[in-house]
């Protein structure tokens, strides 16, 4: 069984990504979840990611079969999936955000080298737009209209400022919480795991460009690595 390093924003998120990898590659993994804390800032996540990549490389060179998932919510950073967003209405902090998928790839390349085919272990990058909840909702609601909110919750200051409305529309966490409630699952982690178990990866890739990009990474993983 392969070791699967997962750098994500929480244990629940890491579980979701691990399950996605199992569903898409068809293999079992022994997960090694590494949590980052968004409150520590992107720079800290970069440092942690660098260390985790080195550690995974060390494990791989020691003979272990090792795979790696690096995940981070997009949070309104530039991405092909949100190209229609009016960035001028974002806060300055959001406007200054670099493309997260790109910097994550560059960071991996800074440790493993620019030639992705020569990387010492299979890597997948996950940058859900705008956050993991968008994948979860689309996974469990394939036939429902697909919302495209930008923020976490409607009552957040940044959401109210962006929409300039007295009644800000529901945002991703609001929408998923409502869906979770409708399905009668009280535990968030259990809900996410259910979404991953029932995942139709091909269908979700058709509805979410960011998920498709994640799946493309996983599709490139050599089958032999994951079965050792």
């Amino acid at each position, binding site marked *: 069984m392969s070791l699967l390093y997962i750098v994500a924003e929480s244990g629940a998120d890491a579980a979701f990504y691990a399950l996605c990898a*199992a569903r898409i590659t068809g*293999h079992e993994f022994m997960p090694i979840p590494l949590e980052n*804390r968004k409150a520590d800032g992107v720079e800290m996540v970069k440092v942690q990611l660098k260390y985790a990549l080195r550690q995974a490389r060390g494990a791989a060179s020691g003979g272990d079969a090792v795979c790696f998932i690096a995940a981070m919510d997009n949070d309104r950073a530039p991405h092909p999936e949100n190209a229609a967003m009016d960035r001028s209405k974002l806060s300055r902090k959001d406007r200054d955000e670099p493309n997260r998928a790109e910097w994550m790839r560059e960071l991996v390349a800074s440790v493993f080298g620019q030639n992705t085919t020569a990387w010492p272990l299979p890597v997948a990058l996950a940058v859900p737009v705008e956050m993991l909840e968008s994948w979860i909702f689309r996974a469990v609601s394939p036939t429902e209209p697909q919302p495209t909110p930008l923020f976490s919750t409607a009552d957040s200051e940044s959401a109210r400022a962006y929409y300039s409305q007295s009644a800000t529309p529901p945002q991703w966490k609001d929408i998923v919480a409502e869906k979770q409630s409708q399905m009668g699952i009280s535990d968030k982690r259990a809900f996410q795991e259910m979404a991953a178990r029932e995942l139709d990866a091909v269908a979700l890739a058709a509805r979410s460009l960011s998920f498709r990009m994640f799946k493309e990474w996983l599709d490139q993983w050599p089958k032999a690595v994951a079965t050792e």
Partner: protein
Amino acid sequence: MSYIKEIALKNYRSFVDARCRLSPFTLIVGANNAGKSNLLKAFADLSMFVSRHGDVDDWSQKRHHASKSYDVEIHADWDDAGPLTTRMLTDEEMEEARKRREEMRKQWEAALDGQHPFKPAPAAKYRGFTGTLSVYAFDPTVIGNPEGGDAIPFIRPNGAGVSWILDKWNSGAKAGRERFAQVVADLRRCVPEIEALSFYDVVAGKRGVQVEQFGLPNPVPLSEVSDGTRLVLAILTLINLESPPPVILLEDINRGLHPRLYERIVEFLRTIANEGKTQILATTHDPYLIDEFRDNPEAVVIVEKKDAASTLSNLDDRLKTFLEPGEELEMPLGQVWFSGLVGGVPQMKLPEILKPAKP
């Protein structure tokens, strides 16, 4: 300075074969149920073995539950006195140990009678291991409660006895008053709001500790101040005993403490330990407390459970799995631990749900 610089455990409680280095002040981290408390208990059992000349109760109960071997060992290496291995004894050896212990008791009684000087056993070279160590899991609701009586006061594992000891010191001979003054001075260093400690009568023979704070006109009972302050007071009282334990074993050292106090308290305890007054081993789950060991990660021990066996490792060794030689750590040490990079965090129970869907 005398302290245990290394410990190795074989088939002992949750450990099968584990070893780590120790410092004068060692922080022990790990997930719940990883084996941190068992590591502390090893020192208590070690002290029992030394002070009772090998006559340790219920060795079989201390054996790893999955181990078929009776080869149970606690090996400790002092920086000055050298190594000592305790192991589960055969019935014959246990009988010998009991005889030696009986002989010791007679010598001790004779010494108390003044008949001839007490000769310490060879094991006494292991720095102060002449009594059994306790694992202290201080309960703030107990510390400082009114106490008194005729028996010899001592600090119990939950912190009971602190009021009584402080009162005896304060109202007793010069040496005791000096110890009391030292405790107050140390407490003020750790919790600057505190001005003084005094006592109040509750019922005949029972007195409680009260705290005088800057800016407040009247003292308040210790039970009214924060859990953290009471915890610090218990630790300080323990350290200032005439014969403090050679190793102080503390569960959840930061229980109730504000993180901003950590720097002061860690510095204070490290100084005490480095001076050789006692060795301190403390458990925690708090990354902010681990941050205080940034300059000596070797003093942080990680306890992890793998395949139903607890393992030990020093944090400085774990850092080498991702730091280049000579490279500075670019994130707080506590964050490194929290992230899972060095282990010692709760494991993700996923193997059973990671199985791919059936086609």
